[in-house]
C-alpha cells in the first residue's frame, strides 16, 4: 500500500497507516526525497502511530529516509512510536539502527521540534 505524502507549509507529512512491505518503504523514501526537492521542504514527519510492529527492515528504511532527506536539505522526525513497539525494538537490538534519527512523541511534538530546529538553523545562519 502506497503511503500518501501531504504538504503542510514547509513540511511534508507521511502517515503510515498499515504494515508496509519492503518495496513500500523504498517507494516512500524515494517519494519523500523527490518531493522535498519539489516543494523545497525544510522538514519531514513520518508518523508511525498506527504501526504495531517494526522489524529490522522498517527500522533501516526509516534511517535511510532520514539520511536521504537530510542530503536533500530537510530534517526528518519520526513520530508516534508506541511504547510496546519501542520496547520490542530495543529488545530486538534495533535501537542502534535508529541512533541518528530524530524522534518525537506525536505529530504535535514533531511540528514543535521541527519549528525549533529550523528556527535555530535560521538564527545560526544569521550569526555566521
Amino acid at each position, binding site marked *: 500500500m502506497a503511503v500518501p505524502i501531504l504538504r503542510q507549509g514547509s513540511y511534508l507529512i507521511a502517515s503510515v497507516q498499515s504494515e508496509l512491505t519492503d518495496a513500500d518503504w523504498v517507494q516512500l523514501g524515494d517519494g519523500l526525497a523527490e518531493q522535498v526537492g519539489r516543494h523545497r521542504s525544510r522538514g519531514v514527519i513520518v508518523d508511525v502511530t498506527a504501526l504495531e510492529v517494526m522489524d529490522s527492515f522498517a527500522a533501516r528504511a526509516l534511517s535511510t529516509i532520514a539520511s536521504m532527506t537530510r542530503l536533500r536539505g530537510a530534517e526528518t522526525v519520526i*513520530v508516534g*512510536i*508506541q*511504547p*510496546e*513497539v*519501542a*520496547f520490542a*525494538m*530495543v*529488545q530486538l537490538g534495533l*535501537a542502534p539502527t*535508529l*541512533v541518528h534519527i530524530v*524522534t*518525537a*512523541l*506525536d505529530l504535535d*511534538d*514533531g511540528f514543535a*521540534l521541527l519549528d525549533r530546529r529550523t528556527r535555530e538553523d535560521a538564527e545560526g545562519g544569521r550569526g555566521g
Partner: protein
Amino acid sequence: MIERAERAIEPSLTQEMEITGEEIERRKAFLEFGDEDVERLMSMNELAQQYADSVIEAFYRHLLSFEEGRAFFPDPALLERVKRKQKAYFVRLTQGNYGPQYVEDRLRIGLLHERINLPTKLYLGMYNFYLRTVASYLLEAYPQDSKKAFGLFLSLLKLVFLDINLAIDTYIHKRERTLRLQQEAIREISTPVLQLRQGLLILPIIGVVDSLRALQLTEQLLRTIRSNRARVVVMDITGVPVVDSKVANHFIQTVEAARLMGATVILTGLSPAIARSLVSLGVDLSRIRTVGDLQGGIEEADHLLGYRVVKGEELDARARPA
C-alpha cells in the same frame, strides 16, 4: 467457619495447580498405587464404617487434649460439624474411585486447612494418628492373618501418602501465590514515575534491579511518557546498590526505548564506586546523558525544556528600574 470458607473457593483447583489427570497417574505410579490397592481398600469399607465413630472420637479426644488443637474449636457446634466431615473422609478412604474428583476434593480440603492456618504438624499428626489407629483395628480384625492385615495397611498407607502430598501441595501453592503477589506489589510501589513539571518526569530507582524489574520499569516509563507527553526524563539511580554490566545494559535499553518515543533520558546519581565498576567493566555509556546528582539532572532537564528557575527576589530586582 469452615463451611463459609468452602463456598468462596474457586471450582477447579486441579487446573490452577496444574494437577492434570496425567499428573495424578504419575503420582499414583510413583507410589505404586494400583488396582489391587483399590480392591483392598474397598474390601475394608465395611470395617471402616464399623469403626469410624470410635476412630473419630478417639482422634478428637487426642486433638483437644492439646492447647493448639483446642484453639480451632471455639464452639461445640463447629466441632460436631467437623467431626461429621472427618468421618465422611475416613469412610471415603475405602470407597474406591480415586480419580480427579477425589483429588479435587483433597485439594479443596487442604486449602481450607491452609486458610484457617492449621499447622502442618497437626495436619500430619492427624494422618499419623489415623494410620496407627487403623493398624491396630486391622490386627484385631484379622488375628490369624497378620499378613493380610499388613497388606491392607500398606494399601491404605499409599493412599494416605497421596492425600498428604496433595494437602501439602495446597499449602505450598497458596504461600507461593501470596509471595508472588507481594513481590508484584513491592515492584509496583518501588518504581513510581513522577511528573515534576509539564514534560518532565522523574524516575527514582531504589533497590536491586534485576531483569524482570528492569523490564517492568521500562514498560511503565514508556507508558507514562505517552500519557504525560513527557519530553525529558531524569532517571536517578542513587538508590541502586549494584550496577553491573547487565544492569547497565538494562538502563541503556530503557534510555533507547524512551528516545524512540521522542523523550530524552538523563541518568543521575552514579556513585564513584559504580562509575569505577562501569569503567573497569568497559560498559559504554557514552550515548547516555549523565549528570552527577538529581539536582544537576533537573537543571539540565529544565534547560532542555526551556525552563528557567529564577528566585522571586532576583526577578523583582531585575524588574525594578535601575
